[in-house]
């Protein structure tokens, strides 16, 4: 099943519903084989009774069989809220292969929604933004929420340029409850500005995760000859020589990623860089890790 997590394979699946189901089921099947990962909504562990413990949590059935008092510990019902902030700027249209960054972002979002709603019974919502908020689907666990989210993802076609400042002011007013906030973007902005714009969500008690979606060509561009490059957002054109792309650009890009990583973590947020030729499980693992920590 792992092969279905290959982005190139997933790109051939047109339905986000089917795609998310494929990804999550495959991912979950993989988890069962791992002893380290396991999670339950109710039972957590047994612990020996010590005086002072609440007798309500003693497992009397076990006491009856073993005449020993153990406390049955449960994980609390979280009812976490998942909010995905999806960047739908033009830069997300870039691709050097079969899969655009936007498609990859949709797959991640769809998979996360599927996992949250179907598996976790969590409320999930979607905010699509570019230089402003273009679509908002309130987090909910109501019937049909998953379909609405998928529809929202389908409608999220990139149009304008990214501007984290303006839409994130609205995010605070739209997200009332604490929860998990996942920002999916290529983050072509100064890391300082990005963190400053997203930081308030963290201050409100949200677990914030930044999914940095990048194309392989953006990480390690290859130019055989001098080329004219067009900015997808601004239509600006410049001529670039291969030597520059091979050396300076890579250094700048690595510095940018590193700075973003350090600044987000410094602000108590999680950062995950995902290259579009990687399997989707990295995003899912990140999400599940957060869930575990949140419990």
């Amino acid at each position, binding site marked *: 099943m792992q092969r279905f997590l290959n982005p190139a394979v997933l790109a051939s699946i047109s339905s986000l519903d089917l795609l998310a189901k494929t990804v999550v089921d495959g991912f979950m099947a993989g988890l069962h084989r791992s002893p380290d990962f396991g999670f339950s909504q109710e039972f957590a562990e047994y612990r020996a009774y010590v005086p002072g413990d609440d007798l309500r949590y003693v497992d009397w059935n076990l006491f009856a069989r073993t005449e020993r008092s153990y406390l049955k510990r449960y994980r609390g019902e979280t009812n976490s809220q998942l909010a995905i902030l999806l960047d739908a700027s033009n*830069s*997300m*249209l*870039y691709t050097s292969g079969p899969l655009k*960054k936007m498609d990859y972002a949709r797959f991640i979002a769809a998979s996360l929604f599927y996992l949250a709603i179907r598996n976790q019974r969590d409320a999930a919502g979607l905010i699509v933004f570019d230089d402003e908020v273009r679509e908002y689907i309130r987090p909910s666990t109501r019937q049909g929420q998953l379909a609405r989210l998928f529809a929202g993802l389908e409608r999220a076609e990139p149009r304008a340029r990214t501007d984290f400042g303006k839409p994130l002011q609205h995010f605070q007013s739209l997200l009332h409850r604490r929860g998990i906030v996942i920002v999916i973007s*290529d983050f*072509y902005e100064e890391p300082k500005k990005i963190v400053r714009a997203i930081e308030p969500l963290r201050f409100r008690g949200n677990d914030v995760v930044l999914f940095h979606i990048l*194309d392989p060509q*953006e990480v*390690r*561009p*290859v130019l*055989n*000859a*001098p*080329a*004219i*490059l*067009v*900015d*997808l*957002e*601004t239509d*600006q*054109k*410049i*001529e*670039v*020589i*291969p*030597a*520059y*792309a*091979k050396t*300076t*650009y890579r250094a*700048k*890009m690595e510095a*940018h990623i590193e700075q973003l990583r350090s600044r987000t973590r410094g602000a108590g947020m999680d950062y995950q860089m995902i290259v579009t030729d990687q399997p989707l499980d990295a995003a899912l693992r990140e999400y599940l890790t957060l869930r575990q920590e949140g419990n």
Partner: protein
Amino acid sequence: MGFLAPWFLAGLAALAVPVFVHLLRKHVTIPRPVSSLMFFERGTQSSTRHRRLRYLLLFALRFALLLLIVLAFANPFVRRPATDTAGHLSLIVLDDSFSMRAGTRFADAKQQALQLLATKPHSQKAQVMTLGGQLQMLTQPISDEAQLHSAIESIQPGDGRANFGEFGRSVRAMAEMVHVPIDVHLFSDMQRTAMPANFAEMVMPASATLILHPIANGTPLPNWTVESVSAPAELEDPKDPRQSRVQAVVAGFSTPATEKTVTLVVNGKVAATRKVNVPASGRASVEFAPLGMGYGFNRCEVRLENHDAFPADDASVFAVRRSDPERVLFVRAANDTRATLYFSSALSAAAQGAYVLQPMAAEQTTDIDASKYAFVVLSNAVSLPSIFEHTLEQYVSKGGSVLIALGPGARSHMRIPLWAGDVKDTHDYARNGAAATVGQVDFTHPALEQAQPGRDNGGWAETKFFYAVTVDPQHARVAARLSDGTPLLLDRRMGEGHILLLTSGLENLTNDLPLHPVFVAFVDKMARYLSGSDALSGSRLVDSFVQLRSATEPKGEVASVEVIDLDGQRPLSLAEARTAQTFRLQRAGFYQIRFANGRDAIIGVNPDRRESDLEPIAPDVQQLWSGSKSGAPKQADKIAVADAKSRPISLWWYVMLLALLVALAETAVASGYMGTQREEV
């Protein structure tokens, strides 16, 4: 260099393709989208330079490839000089004329000719010739260097006179027979006097290239010579001051004024010595008189003492024969006394003639032996005894000569003795009231010879003829005609002898010729011509011919001639001695000759004195000559000559090989540009 298929050069238009692709066409770059230019910087200038540098090499290779392919189709060729072609003839002409004896000229010329022969390609044919009195071929066109070398080595300087006009004619004649280009190498002192009067005569043909190797250039050497000698061939009385004298002209060429000592040598002994002042580059005459000579042939020499740069021309030889006066039989009509008087007076007045006239009536000639006489004159004697006429026929056929003058007697007697024809008509101009004059005179005839006849027709225009007869010239040479076309003087050979026929009389009744001075000169020259004394002594020029016997078919027993040259050798073989009609006097000195008519002669032979002028042809004229070609040859001839002078060598293979190399280089460079750039890890 040229092209065998030049129309393929139109393909050069294809060169515009790489020019357009590489230089004119704008570099089209498809813009490449990126998410953001946040981390990119502009690098236009460096990238443009980089692209231009890379593509200029490719452009150059493609341009060269197209150019080479077009050139290969046009089939370029180069012309190799014709010197290495097998069909090319090198004509080595060595001047062996008399002037080449001056200094080391001939040795230098021979040395240069041998050096040229040494540099000749082995396969090339060459021919060795000499340019002296006549162009003489020593070898056939051969490539054997040993034969050519020995031919050149065998050449010795001669005494002849070079004539570039004859040389040009000979080469032109050769070019018509030899259909290959000829390189004519002329090794000569390039004497100016060897040039003909007309430059066109020495022009080379179109297929011949003249390469001059002048031996002597610059200032000519000063040279004195005995230019001419005037001496009697026959001498009867050494004490006669009119005859017994020798006049010599000493000439200087490029010389300062000086005094020269001139010596007359007779039979090897100095007879007299004179001093003469010769002006600068001028002439002076010297006279020796009287001459003390013995009977028979005397070998004489006028010599300049104190040798100069060219001692070979300091002497001039001649022969003088001293003899008693010869008798001339004058047969006349019985009543003809005037003719005897006039003819006798004229004959005795002639300066160099040594004749005694013996008049005799025609009727008295029956027992006369004509062979005792130098010649016989028949004056108005149209009726001869048959026995005498027969004697005369034998006399003439063996070499005797007869002058027949037809006076009024011919009017009644139509037959002319000895002459094959009869009298056809008589013209009595006196009856018509107007005398005839002499209209045409052949001054080349020995009896009428004049070097430069005046405007009065050499004195003949003033003579008047009142009576003349008309005869059939037949095979006779007409030496003079009257104004109405009637032949006046005819010359006919008969056996070894001559018969001169004057169609008028020798007296003053039929014409007034005896009253004019030209009569004396006429009688003098005629007497010498008929007696043949001119041929027996005196001097000749080198390369002149001596007539040994008559040109007519010999009758009866054939007499042999004998020639002994200056070395005492007999240059004629026995067969040639019986058949040769002429003999060419090739060397300077004394020749001893016995003619077919039995007469002996000693002839002094001198080089042509024009050879003594050592001044060379001006350099610009030499250049003009060596660069001249005949007329305006046709275009086809030009092409043929050009083809013949050089051999086209196609460069097709070389060009195609170069094109292949360029194509390989272009492939390598282009593939380098198009190859995937490997990622540097």
